[in-house]
């Protein structure tokens, strides 16, 4: 049967457009692509970019979220000047820096050591891996509450265990301004060492066996193999763990609030807790917006520098 011109025309309309052309007449590839991307883009703009820009704008004003009817005054850089001259903010930044440094140091040391042990694939290593990672599966707020009971000086098991080895008497971990910082470092280390361990384990398992075999043939000692093969090859993984934990701990909030509320006094008042108090308890929204900008720039800047260093290490 011969094809009529009409049916031929109809087929040509149904045929897929060459080179991935428009699905329907009038919609170009570019338009379709935008249509697909638009919802995500809109959400990104609405949820991330707009609040960020709005926050930057508010940081130059005297806005108070609990008094929306109050006339908004443009303050210029006054919030930033106040912020930089504020001793309490510097104190909270120091507390944050100490917390980040010590918790990451312990997590890296312990995490690497545990990964090293687990990597030896002893009998039951899979079971112990599961047991070790349990703390990081808990909610930080729950961990905070849970440890307040463990640290309770009269009934808590922590004091009991410590005093079993040496009698320190009625010491209190979260009530003593000198010990409270170590209490939050300890709890954070308990909770997040497994995370560092898992990343290190991935790094250790990525080291090819033939490198160790070649080193053994060359007569390299275990110590030498560790420093010249294991450490350099696992270092990028370790640095990645430090980056993740650094960012997380810089904005740590829930666990410490439950554990110490930033106390005693302001001994464990991290920058995030200070920010929350300024923003949602004192309602100094403009001022806290400025503080949020400073914290954001700090984390963003440090993380960027760190990532560059990380890339260099990987290239080596």
């Amino acid at each position, binding site marked *: 049967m011969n094809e009529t011109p009409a049916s031929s025309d109809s087929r040509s309309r149904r045929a897929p457009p060459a080179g991935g052309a428009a699905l329907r007449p009038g919609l170009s590839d570019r338009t379709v692509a935008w249509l697909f991307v638009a919802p995500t883009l809109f959400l990104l703009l609405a949820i991330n970019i707009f609040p960020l820009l709005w926050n930057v704008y508010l940081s130059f004003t*005297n806005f108070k*979220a*609990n*008094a929306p*009817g109050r006339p908004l005054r443009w303050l210029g850089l006054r919030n930033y000047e106040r912020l930089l001259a504020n001793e*309490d903010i510097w104190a909270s930044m120091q507390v944050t820096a100490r917390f980040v440094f010590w918790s990451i140091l312990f997590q890296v040391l312990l995490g690497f050591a545990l990964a090293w042990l687990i990597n030896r694939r002893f009998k039951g290593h899979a079971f112990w891996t599961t047991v070790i990672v349990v703390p990081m599966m808990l909610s930080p707020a729950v961990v905070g509450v849970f440890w307040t009971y463990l*640290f*309770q*000086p*009269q009934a808590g098991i922590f004091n009991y265990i410590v005093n079993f080895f040496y009698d320190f008497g*009625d*010491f*209190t971990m*979260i*009530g*003593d*301004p000198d010990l409270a910082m170590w209490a939050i470092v300890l709890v954070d280390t308990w909770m997040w060492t497994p995370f560092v361990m898992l990343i290190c384990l991935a790094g250790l398992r990525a080291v090819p066996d033939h490198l160790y075999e070649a080193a053994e043939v060359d007569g390299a000692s275990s110590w030498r193999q560790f420093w010249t093969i294991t450490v350099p090859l696992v270092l990028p993984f370790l640095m990645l763990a430090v980056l993740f934990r650094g960012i997380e701990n810089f904005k740590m909030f829930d666990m410490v*609030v439950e554990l*110490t*509320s*930033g*106390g*005693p*006094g*302001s*001994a464990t008042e991290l920058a995030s807790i200070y920010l929350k*108090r300024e923003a*949602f*308890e*004192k*309602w*100094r929204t403009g001022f806290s917006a400025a503080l949020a900008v400073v914290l954001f720039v700090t984390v963003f800047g440090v993380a960027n520098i760190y990532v560059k260093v990380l890339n260099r290490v990987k290239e080596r």
Partner: protein
Amino acid sequence: MRRTFLTTIALSLGLAAGVAQAQEKSLTLCWAAWDPANALTELSRDFTAQTGIAMNFEFVPWTSFADRFLNELNSRGKLCDLMIGDSQWLGLAAENGHYVKLNDFFDKEGIDIEDFLPATVYNYSTWPKGSPNYWALPAMGDALAWVYRKDWFARPEIREAFQKEYGRELAPPTTWTELMEVAKFFNGREIDGKVRYGVAIYTERGSEGITMGVTSALYPWGFRYQDPERPYQMEGFVNSPQAVEALEAYKALYECCTPPGHSDAYMVANLDAYKSGQVAMQMNWFAFFPGILKDEEVGAVSGFFVNPRQNEEASVLGGQGISVVSYSDKKDLALQYIKWFAQPEVQQKWWALGGYSAHRAVLEAPDFPKSAPFAGDFLKAMSNVRDFWQEPEYAELLQAMQRRIHDYVVADKGTAKEALDKLIQDWTEIFEDAGKL
């Protein structure tokens, strides 16, 4: 079959309409989760029985009470039709239009605000302070007071030891100096084979705990927030020598005589320390005293005393007024509740159930002081109560004080004078921001 189907549909629609109507005639009351809230739930059953208006309750623990409900008000939420909010919120709530002004309603319904204790009207209802602008009906009178172990105080060997050590009889303290002596005496003492501690005081950092605790020492020493002649001028008042002495006394009491780990304690922690027999005395709100009296362990052995004097008699004000939230869609029903609650017989039942009425018909009844072991002390305390700033900037002012006081008392940072000087700086900055300085 079809008929049955239609009947079922009609019944379902009728039921749904009935449910909707019942839901429409309901109110939500927001308050803190504590003993008096249970008494109010019980009391409100009468209101529902009389009016057919169902009562729902939103009770939040004290530690998140201000956060939760101030956020609700600031975001113009419709959750609460009635709010029993802290006295210090009045300035904020009135100036930002969160509460309905009740003057016209009182006039229309013949509610005489003078039927309530003047101190409670001043503190729980008026803004600006002392003006005839009413934003709440006094709902729950309260003040900070003390509980002690009557049985320990009565033991001959303990009394003898105290007499020997201090040259006077062991009795509930009437001054802060005596309070310190009694706390020291009991601290570390072994009673019934267990080591006991002197006192449980407020040291909480997160909400308002340590401020409430420390002001119970500051006020009797003669602390003033500002120059009465020059509002918001705090130099020489907030950091007066008396204030410094009071703050040092509070710190000394914390260091010497509280149980280990009592560094972030508020109402519940004090109750726990007391009920578990750790301490000889605790500070707490009158609101908890009916519950203590009913407690199986310590009810029979507890005595009560009003906040001790030092240079003057003064107690920290607690308690709240009940307000209608202006964002509620059921303001008429909410006002109906307030009208019902203001009746003397309802107030009488409120007191009987464990709430603290502020109605004079209840408090000035001849038999009131004997109606409970702490009733007389309650009256005494309410006659000299003092409150924290009630300015709209209350939350900022409170947080500044929490930080400075906790830093000094618990974290041992700096001196009392330095803490109070810094507090003046913080408060000055807040008042400057508010355009008051």
